[in-house]
């Protein structure tokens, strides 16, 4: 049993408070991406690639510094570049590291039909277990951030693991470690949330970004990757970051009411047919009356 599951909340025959209450660790991990200090150097992209052993896929120059249009099955971490002119005419180059957001309420997991192909750990990491993945791609539909990608060669779906192999032994994810400017931070969710709010506050008060804020969307019950944005009111500016992401309604309907209705209907149908047979029985052919035996 892990520490997470042995956290003591009540003790029998014990007077006073529970020792350690209030001191217990928070296990929820979180990446903080401060887009206002991102320099778009792509160190995170390469570190991710190198650590995870994916090497080369062909890219094309597309009138941008951006490596490719979207993340790929073998490219989990992509900085999206957007030129933006503010109302006062000043230029901005908005750069946002795109990767799995590790939603608290993950749409991929909700949509996945394969037993144990997607797991969510107590620390918040949503992890694809490729051994169990059947490659159906429902997670792709379920994700409001367009993150999981199908590998035609492996016939499975891949995405950022938040370097759970590193995190599990007390190392930070590869992208976090590489980030030269400290635009990426890693820690517990509450610490990162606080750091993000402090930074957003500084941007509002010191740097002339009155709309600066933190992106931790409630639609998916928060994410384990949060952003500081210069303009939190317009997340779409940052390479299409959804304003209000949530598990798609259709996935919810499909996995909820439709599933139970369908199951009920199928079961009901089988039962109904059985009852029909028992009550009414088979249809049998009848002899042809003589008038119809004669040729006309």
């Amino acid at each position, binding site marked *: 049993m892990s*520490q997470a599951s042995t956290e003591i909340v009540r003790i029998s025959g014990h007077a006073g408070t529970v020792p350690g209450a209030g001191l217990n660790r928070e296990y929820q991990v979180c990446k903080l991406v401060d887009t206002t200090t991102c320099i778009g150097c792509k160190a995170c992209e390469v570190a991710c690639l190198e650590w995870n052993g994916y090497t080369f896929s062909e890219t094309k120059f597309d009138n941008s510094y951006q490596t490719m249009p979207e993340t790929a099955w073998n490219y989990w971490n992509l900085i999206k570049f957007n030129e933006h002119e503010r109302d006062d005419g000043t230029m901005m180059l908005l750069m946002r590291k795109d990767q799995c957001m590790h939603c608290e309420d993950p749409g991929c997991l909700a949509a996945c039909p394969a037993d144990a192909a997607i797991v969510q750990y107590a*620390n918040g990491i949503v992890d694809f277990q490729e051994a169990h993945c059947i490659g159906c791609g429902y997670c792709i539909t379920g994700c409001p951030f367009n993150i999981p990608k199908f590998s035609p060669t492996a016939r499975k779906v891949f995405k950022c693991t938040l370097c759970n192999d590193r995190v599990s032994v007390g190392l930070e994810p590869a992208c976090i470690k590489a980030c030269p400017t400290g635009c990426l931070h890693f820690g517990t969710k509450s610490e990162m949330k606080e750091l993000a709010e402090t930074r957003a506050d500084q941007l509002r008060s010191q740097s002339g970004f009155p709309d600066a804020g933190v992106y931790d969307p409630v639609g998916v019950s928060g994410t384990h990757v949060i952003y500081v944005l210069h303009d939190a009111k317009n997340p779409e500016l940052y390479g299409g970051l959804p304003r209000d992401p949530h598990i798609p309604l259709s996935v919810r309907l499909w996995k909820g009411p439709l599933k139970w209705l369908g199951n009920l209907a199928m079961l009901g149908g089988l039962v109904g047919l059985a009852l029909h047979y028992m009550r009414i029985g088979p249809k049998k052919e009848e002899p042809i009356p003589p008038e119809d035996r004669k040729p006309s």
Partner: protein
Amino acid sequence: MQASRREFFKVAAVGGVAATIFGFDLKPAYAQLKELKIARATETRSTCPYCAVGCGVLIYTIGDKAKNVTPQVVHVEGDPDHPTNRGTLCPKGSSLEQDMLNPRRLTKPQVRRPGGTDWQDISWDDALNEIAHWTKKTRDETFIEKDANDRLANRCEGISFIGGCTDTNEFNYLVVKTMRSLGLVYLENQARV
């Protein structure tokens, strides 16, 4: 690509102690973590060869430096102790592994003869002998002992040495020692441009 694919699908249960550090409750039947690829690798401290920030890097190699083993690079990442980069690396530093494991590396001496349209292989011994002969020949032909004003010049204007940006201090110093002693004055370096 083959190797990395294998690596990716190779899963192993991580021991309970390690697993609990960040609160994993591993039920191996459901979730198995990729093994840490540097778990038993040897760490060598080096300096990134690219820009002049001089980031510390850790080179992870397979093998424990035993006599019968040729180490093999598996990973490179920033040295967290280095005060300047504190473990961070830029996209170039992050790809250093590929600089070491690069099929495009030169691995044998070659020569292109006058009028040649391709490279020919040459042994180190022949190559260095020929270079030494060229050096002496050109030096002897172009050496200026006295200048036009009959002052001591002792310089060789027929040979130039241009040095690179990643050479160590010690190499640079050896170049200065040897090349100045040959009388070279066309001695320049990336430092100029």
